């Protein structure tokens, strides 16, 4: 069975974010970019499903600039079969991204489309469900494990205090979160093989974003801590402040 995995290139989660001069984005100088970790779970899930089926291909799709090619090659090195780079601008509007990706996926014979539950940079959780709507397919979000069984896909979701099991008819869209799919390391042979795998670059369809970022700010500095005293004598005052001022007791 063919599976499409949608990836996003994001700043490394260890990045110390600085706001750019316009105040609407982040400084990109010196920032290391990686595949969004949730997308790595999705890719791992896809690779295991392909291995279980023993047939089919895993295709990667991303919307971004030429630098996203590196992220796609990382995915190819992990074991995906081919990749498509939709050359275009990533906006904060999840619907614009979903429409651009849908235009590519509509023409592909792939009953299963996987994405990370959210991008590690903007945390919006929009693209997956919106893509499902644009494609007119059912969607399960926050899936921790799935299995294709004939014409359906069974999904497990973790809910408050329990597990929810869903069954969706194929074709379907799933967004994957941390669970069963600890991503594999790209093997060094895989890295070499990735160079020979097809990576197609095409222009993304133009979609006018309906959402713009007005302002981006770092959280205010935390107020400095306060020492209320030392030793056992300070405890009553500490308890009083925790109760009356901080209201945590």
């Amino acid at each position, binding site marked *: 069975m063919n599976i499409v995995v949608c990836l996003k290139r994001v700043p490394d989660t*260890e990045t110390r974010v600085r706001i750019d001069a316009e105040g609407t984005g982040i400084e990109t100088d010196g920032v290391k970019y990686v595949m969004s970790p949730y997308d790595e779970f999705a890719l791992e899930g896809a690779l295991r499903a392909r291995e279980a089926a023993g047939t089919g291909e895993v295709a990667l799709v991303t919307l971004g600039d030429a630098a996203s090619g*590196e992220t796609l090659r990382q995915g190819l090195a992990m074991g995906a079969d081919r990749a498509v780079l939709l050359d275009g601008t990533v906006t904060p509007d999840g619907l614009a991204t979903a429409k651009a990706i849908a235009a590519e996926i509509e023409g592909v014979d792939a009953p299963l489309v996987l994405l990370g539950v959210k991008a590690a940079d903007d945390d919006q959780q929009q693209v997956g469900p919106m893509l499902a709507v644009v494609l007119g397919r059912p969607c399960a979000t926050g899936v921790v494990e799935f299995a294709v069984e004939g014409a359906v896909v069974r999904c497990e979701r973790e809910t408050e205090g329990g597990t929810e099991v869903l069954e969706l008819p194929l074709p379907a869209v799933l967004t994957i979160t941390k669970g069963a799919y600890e991503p594999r*390391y*790209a093997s*060094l*042979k895989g890295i*070499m093989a990735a160079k020979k795998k097809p990576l197609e670059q095409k222009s993304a369809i133009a979609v006018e974003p309906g959402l713009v970022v007005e302002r981006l700010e770092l959280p205010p500095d935390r107020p400095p801590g306060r020492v209320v005293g030392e030793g056992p004598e300070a405890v009553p005052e500490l308890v009083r402040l925790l109760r009356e001022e901080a209201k945590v007791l």
Partner: protein
Amino acid sequence: MGFQVAAKFQGIDFYNLDALFSEEERMVRDTVRDWVEDRVLPVIGQAYVERTFPTDLIPEMGELGVLGANLPEKYGCAGLNNVAYGLIMQELERGDSGLRSFASVQGALVMYPIYAFGSEEQRQQWLPRLASGEKIGCFGLTEPDFGSNPAGMITTARKTSDGWLLNGTKMWITNGSMADVAVVWAQTGEIGDTKGIRGFVVPTDVAGFSARDQKGKLSLLASDTSELVLEDVELPADALMPETSGLKNPLMCLTQARYGIAWGGIGAAMACYAEALEYGINRIMFDGPIAGKQIQQVRLAEMVTKITQAQLVAYHLGRMKDDGTMTPQQVSLAKRANVDMACEVAREARRLLGANGILIEYASMRHMANLESVYTYEGTHDIHSLILGQTVTGIAAF
């Protein structure tokens, strides 16, 4: 035992060398770096104090493809260029010199000679299984009385009616006790005849072959160092590596291994520098971080300078190796300079860490102790000095 969990290592790259590496080279490095971070650093301190090599990492190294990574894909290897191979050695030694030694021996001293001097049957039989880590190899050249002077070796191989008879002792053999196969160098002619030295592929389960763990080490504790004894070991005729024709063959192997060590030293130094920098910033003394004191800043400045110089040497050496223009003397310079650099950086890092620096919870003293072996093996620092001396003066001092 608690170990410090530091922020994810981002590399030391003061001169933006990343821009010189290809995307694949960076991807290889980052993959091995992540693996070392996830799998090696959490266990290596414990393994070190327990004096064990973490053998469960071997199949993982095989799966990643780090063993003999610069050998061709047709033998189950990754087929990487030598710069990528060097970066692998760097990252492994950021974990521990014992881990890098394992990979150096397996790749450069066992797989390389089988590939370069072995028969096609020997290649087919051993290389894929050594690449996957299913089989472990060791390299027997050094003897108790012939270290820096291997030409004088007294391990002999005598022709018999249907094969070879080997006798002798090999010492300081990394992987010796756990090896499935040993590449053994032995004298087939008169003692002292450099052209009589030939290489043999010896399965370690043959009668008369034994290995003894080297006791009492204070360095490379997370590594198997052994003595090999060959007592009337009978081998079939095809145990000989047919393309070996003298001492130059094991020396070619050493050039491969020393090349990797020149990169490995950088990895160990990076680990120590990063640890010292982080500690210096967080350790408060006299109401401020010790990294704000001039004496520690001099230390850190020296470290980052030396690491950067070593990186440039290794980088260019690697490009020359890939071009086919690298000479063994250039490898001598890099091994000598970069390991010496790593020794200095490790010692200064340990000192910056103060009393904490003597604990296994920190990596610097472990690296410092390991690097004394690295300084001494694969051509001692002093012998490399003499090689360089001979190269520039035209006069051999040994």
